[in-house]
């Protein structure tokens, strides 16, 4: 044994004279670090109640509960997480997956309570000392991307390649791409409430992810008999509320619907509708118009055992949706596949049958119910000098007249006035017919009612956008036309409405063009309604007012689609048709 070995341990006594390493609690305490995983906070303004935190919690420490002050709304379930600290293990998975990033952990780790029941609370609602603390573990989606990821890019034709023909721009997903895209869904179901038809979106996305496409198609038809059309041109309210869209990109719900439909040559074979109307012999219903609303009503009524007679003034069904939307967005090749479903479902189509007011009166006696879904027929007029000149045309009529066959001469330079989908479709169609196209719109590009995607694609195709331009007049200039406009600036509306364009100066700008298309808006022609019936209805701004069951207030007469007020899109019309069918069947 060495002497130093006996002595050296005692040198530790020198520590007695030095500062201690420990903290003299409670005089001093150790604050949690900037990333500390302490108690929960929730930013209620951001929380949408998607329930992702509840879903991921391995300890079942989180439950979604109804909270006073957070009412269910479009894109918000109204539910908020309640955290039970008897179960929480502070793993913070809930934080990293929070789709809006509203949930975070404070750096507080100490909390004393004498009431065991308060060990569970609703962060953000139940006030806690750490609500205002800025420190603690919060989400960083740029690192993990667990709360939102990019979508699988849809293969599409390049702009310079697509402007030379009318081929469909979108190429469609491969099964592998579709499976990956569909499996991004977190099954929160916020999209279901946003969809006017309340389609079973989480369920069919799951079916697509699992590769069970026929199940997906059957789920589509539960609330939407035109899934392929919607899969191509739907306004997709669902995607606008998608929880994955807050910190990543919304799931491509529309493209996936299109994908599933494309997997089958015949959708009616998948549905096997010809086998059984659910309850035959329930009565006869007359439907005016074969647009999405009329077709939707015809399908559901037939399935419920009604004889649905659909009257169409043209030789083909599908309405404005089918015929005004150009080939490159909605190819006519899908028409037969779509109509086959309705025929097999048992709907009776009467084409080339213009319905007069006399017919309506007769029908209201002969049929058990009448569903008016006549849609839009008229393009709105626009009052500036020169609109009567020969080269000035209505864009809506132009689109309805199969412009893609090249039969309509538009010249080498075209001007389109308007900023809606009709304006975009006309501009892009003219471009494909070989013209140079200018779009004149009174407000800003962000104010355009057209689908954002259409605006983007039109820009890619190098269409000349002239926003904030007020039309003044059109003059004849030799063989051509000269369009005069003034530049506008946006002035805020004192009443809180959207900003108004106001002429900036006296300068007039002119462009020489061959054709001017007016795309100001469309309306319904309700002239076919007999006065006895129209008189009893409430008709405002050329639209028939209906209740939540599409009932017009006139016995046995229902209406839907563009003849009634609403969003004016396909899915809304489909929902109208379905609601009317349900109401008629319950009558």
């Amino acid at each position: 044994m060495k002497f130093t070995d006996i002595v050296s341990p005692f040198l530790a006594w020198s520590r007695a004279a030095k500062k201690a390493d420990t903290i003299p609690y409670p005089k001093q305490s150790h604050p949690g670090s900037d990333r500390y995983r302490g108690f929960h906070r929730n930013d209620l303004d951001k929380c949408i109640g998607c329930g992702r935190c509840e879903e991921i919690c391995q300890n079942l420490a989180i439950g979604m509960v109804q909270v006073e002050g957070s009412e269910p709304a479009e894109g918000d379930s109204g539910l908020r997480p309640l955290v039970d600290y008897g179960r929480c293990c502070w793993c913070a998975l809930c934080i990293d997956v929070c789709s809006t990033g509203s949930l975070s952990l404070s750096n507080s780790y100490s909390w004393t309570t004498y009431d065991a029941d308060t060990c569970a609370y609703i962060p953000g609602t139940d006030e806690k000392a750490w609500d205002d603390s800025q420190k603690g573990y919060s989400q960083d989606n740029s690192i993990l991307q667990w709360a939102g990821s990019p979508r699988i890019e849809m293969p599409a034709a390049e702009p310079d390649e697509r402007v030379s023909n009318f081929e469909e721009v979108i190429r469609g997903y491969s099964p592998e791409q579709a499976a990956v895209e569909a499996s991004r869904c977190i099954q929160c179901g916020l999209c279901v409430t946003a969809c006017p038809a309340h389609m079973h979106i989480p369920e069919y996305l799951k079916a697509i992810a699992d590769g069970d496409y026929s199940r997906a198609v059957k789920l589509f038809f539960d609330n939407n008999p035109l899934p392929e059309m919607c899969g191509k041109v739907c306004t997709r309210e669902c995607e606008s509320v998608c929880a994955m869209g807050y910190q990543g990109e919304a799931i491509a719900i529309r493209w996936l619907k299109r994908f599933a439909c494309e997997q089958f040559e015949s959708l009616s074979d998948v549905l096997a509708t010809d086998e059984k109307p659910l309850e035959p012999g329930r009565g006869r219903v007359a439907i005016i118009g074969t647009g999405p609303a009329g077709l939707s009503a015809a399908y559901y009524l037939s399935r419920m055992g009604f004889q649905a007679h659909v009257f169409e003034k043209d030789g083909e069904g599908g309405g404005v949706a089918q015929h005004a939307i150009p080939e490159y967005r909605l190819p006519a090749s899908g028409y037969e596949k779509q109509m086959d479903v309705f025929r097999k479902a048992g709907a009776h189509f009467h084409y080339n049958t213009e319905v007069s007011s006399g017919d309506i009166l007769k029908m209201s006696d002969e049929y058990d119910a009448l569903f008016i879904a006549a849609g839009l027929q008229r393009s709105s007029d626009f009052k500036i000098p020169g609109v009567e000149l020969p080269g000035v045309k209505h864009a809506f009529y132009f689109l309805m007249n199969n412009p893609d066959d090249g039969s309509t001469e538009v010249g080498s330079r075209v001007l389109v006035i308007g900023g809606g989908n009709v304006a975009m479709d006309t501009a892009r169609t003219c471009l494909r017919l070989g013209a140079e196209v200018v779009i004149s719109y009174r407000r800003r590009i962000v104010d355009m009612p057209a689908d954002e995607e259409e605006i983007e694609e039109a820009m890619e195709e190098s269409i000349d956008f002239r926003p904030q331009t007020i039309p003044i007049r059109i003059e004849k200039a030799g063989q051509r036309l000269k369009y005069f406009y003034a530049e506008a600036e946006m002035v805020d509306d004192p009443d809180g409405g959207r900003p108004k364009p106001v002429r900036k100066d006296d300068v007039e700008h002119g462009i020489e063009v061959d054709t001017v298309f007016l795309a100001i808006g469309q309306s319904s022609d309700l002239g076919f309604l007999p006065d006895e019936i129209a008189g009893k209805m409430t008709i405002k701004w050329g639209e028939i007012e209906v209740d939540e069951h599409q009932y017009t207030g006139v016995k046995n007469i229902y209406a839907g689609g563009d003849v009634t007020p609403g969003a004016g899109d396909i899915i809304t019309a489909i929902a109208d048709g379905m609601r009317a069918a349900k109401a008629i069947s319950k009558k």
Partner: protein
Amino acid sequence: MNSSTDPLKTTHLFFGPQHPGVTGNMSVEMWFDGDEITKAVTHVGYLHRGFEKLMERRLWIQNFPLVCRICVPEPDINEECYALAVEKLAGLQVPERAKWIRTLILELARFAVNLMAFGGQAGTLGLGTGAMWGITFRDFVLDLFEELTGARVYHMYIQPGGVRRDLPEGFEKRVLAVLDKIGERLPEFDRLILNNSVFRDRTVGVGIVKPEWVSELGLVGPVARGSGSLRDVRKDAPYEVYGELDFEVVSEQGCDIYSRALLRRREIDLSMHLIRRILESMPGGPVAAPLPNLTEWRIPPGEIYTRIESSRGEYGYYVVSDGSLKPRRVHVRGPSFVHALTLLERMLVGANIADVSNIMVSLTTCPPEIER
């Protein structure tokens, strides 16, 4: 009747599970002749939480906050083993920076454990100052963990695909500051423990692990290296970035408790060396690979065994996937299984009653990895 357990000749005693000298919740049933142990049987079962079974009921991602709970002093090894297994099964590419950060974490954890274990060895002999200092030094490292991961003990930081967060700004400097602070005090620590006549008397020549047992019983880690073996997964089958780091495996020839303590002391130096190298060479870039939707994450069918070097030796996970959302089977192979059962029962025969906890701590046995 076996003579080693003859009630007329021996005293029968339970050591643990409630005893400060026992490492964790386990117990050793012993028979003594005088104060010499004639037979020892290890009992476990006080701590069974069914980790392996629980994992079969949780999503792949939900398991990484669970696995760390198998080991309190060094949770990161479980996260690492699990993450490696999932990544290999799923074919995930881990970003380069994440690998360096993971190696840093694993070395910091080993550093903290060895500080505690080295001091703890003195603690079993009643030299409480050493044990307290070990805990204090470990706490300095825990401060770093808290800053980096948001928690002091269960870090839940190494996840399949990478790590959860990048290093905070200035973190490297603070790591070096802690290394310097502890490094400065280590000579004092040595004087207190290694150059201590009591410690030497009680550890030199006590708790012999014969070199031939290493292969016979499959001993690993400090227990094997304290008996002259050079087994170290970091060198034998380098994972993460250990292959790119320059270091020598440390080994001691004494085979007794003292050489195992000395080995841990040298491991502390090695960890400090490795941490410095890692901080010098850390590349930039992302720290996590993108994962699919966590609640829909299916991993292709397959099975895999991953192993890493924990502070107690080779630590492995055997993971089977059947292509579903959850693991089909996860098996945890911790080094304590052999050390606490086979080896401890063999070493205790002939040992003195006062040396039981001394021997046990020198093996740093950990019951949770025996009964997962």
